[in-house]
């Protein structure tokens, strides 16, 4: 028995698959790919899979991962990749299958890319407003969680950022806390523009990478 980690991209139409549905789909896909993996025991056995870090509905993800136990020690990991790719819906592609090096519990940050544009303000103005937002001393925002609504200072959670004016859109790369301890949703940046500048921006959000506590890529 071998612990493996399947790396995949989730983009295009697959952005609209919720985490719950992704889990359900993956169970079916593994069954379809006839992968020899470990099933839970009990009344209704199903493949045992876990995901490193759920991705919000509507975001693309470039380094998504799913773990399971492969029963066949000899099986070529490339074959695992190929078999899964034949069964996946549009927008999800497996690009690598590896050993599980780090434990998902070590995930601490994630790098997001945001592309913002707006019908009502031109890109130059939007760019200025975004810079203004990031220059504020604090960016107090309501954050929804299971426990209810809580105020967080988005500003103090931004670890690193870069803002570019790309003519037709404003490009933001930002590292935010992610993982089992604290999670800050990059959508809060879009919400903050609305709250402080009354700008309703269209956005595309991509989770580009996932990091451990030392800002090293999760592997």
């Amino acid at each position: 028995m071998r612990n493996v980690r399947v790396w995949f991209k989730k983009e295009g139409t697959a952005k609209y698959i919720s985490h719950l549905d992704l889990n359900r789909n993956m169970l079916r896909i593994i069954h379809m790919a006839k992968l020899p993996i470990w099933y839970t025991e009990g009344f209704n056995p199903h493949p045992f899979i876990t995901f490193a870090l759920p991705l919000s509905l509507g975001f693309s993800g470039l380094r998504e991962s799913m773990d399971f136990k492969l029963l066949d020690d000899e099986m070529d990991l490339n074959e695992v990749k190929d078999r899964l790719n034949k069964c996946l819906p549009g927008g999800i592609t497996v690009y690598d299958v590896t050993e599980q090096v780090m434990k998902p519990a070590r995930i601490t940050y994630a790098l997001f890319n945001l592309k913002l544009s707006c019908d009502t303000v031109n890109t130059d103005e939007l760019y200025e407003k975004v810079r203004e937002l990031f220059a504020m001393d604090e960016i107090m925002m309501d954050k929804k969680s299971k426990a209810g609504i809580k105020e967080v200072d988005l500003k103090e959670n931004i670890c690193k950022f870069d803002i570019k004016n790309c003519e037709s859109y404003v490009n933001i790369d930002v590292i935010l806390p992610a993982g089992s301890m604290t999670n800050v949703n990059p959508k809060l940046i879009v919400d903050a523009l609305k709250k402080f500048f009354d700008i309703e921006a269209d956005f595309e959000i991509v989770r580009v990478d996932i990091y451990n506590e030392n800002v090293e890529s999760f592997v």
Partner: protein
Amino acid sequence: MYSKEVERILLKVQKPGRYVGGELNSVIKDKKDIDVRFAFCFPDVYEVGMSHLGMKILYSQFNTVPYIWCERVFAPWIDMEELMIERNIPLYGLESGDPITDFDFIGFTLQYELSYTNVLNMLKLAKIPIKSKDRPELKNIVVAGGPCACNPEPLAEFIDIFFIGEGEEVDLEVIELYRKFRAENKSKKEFLIAASQIQGVYVPALYNVEYNNDGTIKSFTPEEGAPAKITKRLMMNLDEVFYPDNFVVPTIEIIHDRAVEEIFRGCIRGCRFCQAGFLYRPVREKSVATIDKQCRELCKNTGYDEVSLSSLSSSDYSRVVELLTQLNKWSNEEKVSISLPSLRVDGFTDDIMSKIKTVRKSGLTFAPEAGSQRLRNVINKNVFEDELLQTCDTAFGGGWSKVKLYFMIGLPTETLDDVAEIAALGQKVVDTYYRNPNKQKGRAVSVTVSASSFVPKPFTPFQWEPQDTIPQLHEKQQHLKKSITTKKITYNYHEADTSFLEAVFARGDRKLCKVMEIACQNGFHFDGWDDCFSLDAWMKLFEQCGIDTAFYANRRRSFDELLPWDHIDYGVTKEFLISECKKAYEAATTPNCRQKCSNCGVGKWKGGICVEKRQSMV
């Protein structure tokens, strides 16, 4: 692939996965190679439409033809609809994202009457004129099929072509004709006239209706050489008929998320209220070998771990035990479970019980339909109380403790005593549980009694019957509620309001087209959903149009009245329906097709069960 404009609203709506396509097995073609584009529209939300077998069959079949590209279209839910209107985004096909106006055919499947307003609303959202006569060109041909096409009249002014009966052949013949006529630069009128000559095609614009002073139909006259009777199409050999080897697999959760294998068409039973039982005659079965092969293919190409064996009454499949034994040979090893929906009370034997596991999850469901034996005889539901109790006993002994029982109220000849007997029957099921020595220790029994309201439907022996008025139905519902005295029984009933509207549409005529048109202008949609349905709004509309709803729903029609659907021929003769109706009044039953042929008329096609040898019945 959806457009940029659609992308911008997707995160503002519930379940955006409904609107994006891209699922496993969805078909993408290169427009360069395509001659005919077909928009297959299901007039309800994605989760409902994607659960529908007929759509899966025709979608796959059309797409096997190289020059046709068939795409799926569903009714956008109200949040999406609002944004689409606000941002001027027309309705689009899920595969290409192209607007529906780009399509040659716009095809609707009519599964229930309450989806009619969605049909018109979808045309409106597509920016296509809803009335046939306002679409003069040979493009955007609006076609419709499915069970409700058996009385097409309430939609006669909107639909260019109705398909009567099973679509596998006739749809393709019409598409081929269109392709030819378009190449020859013919007009839409010429195309429709030629199409009307194909068996199973009904072009309502080619018929002229005249009415008597009392509102009933005086005459129905074909024009331009269209046939006086439109005869249904049907596929006789189900082993040869097209069946998909894969389904589009949704990524979001839908109502029935599993592989579905059709095991036979038709029903041997002849329950007198059941429209499907008459429309799909005769019974035609697939062989065990075909079903086995198709189930394996479907599981392989979809990854589903559940196959549902579908038909109107699955335990009536003549070799059901042989079939389950064959399927079990591979299904256990492949971790696939087999489910057998629509089980009859007398079809649930130990043998079947041991071969299907999934029933356990949801509990057992039976449909005695009526509480008293007299009334069950009236409706020809040949189920006996001792059979039902015996079956429940078997199930309780096998570990089940949940039973759902379906009934109808408002059936012809029904009295309040018949209604009270529903409660009594539920009570007997509860008592059976407590008497069973092998029941699950320490678990309480749960019996659900669901009562829907009877809707008289065309092509049934009850097509002449009045529906109970809403106050009458309410009285019966309350009486049933009062008659249930134990907490072990949960009582559910369906709103009488929707059944009433269903009754108006089901037996409506062309005079209702005006109401439909105004309903569409006023934004009516999703009548099958509590969120949107309002009987008050409908009643105002009927009044405004001078339509007496009781004329359609609550009037007893005479056997010699010319009915709005009398020009449509499903094989079952009117004489047979009349004799069945008269037998109902005497509470006399009719044997099922496997026991004895009752000469319903369908035998003229010399196929299926009508030509099978019958074993002498026990």
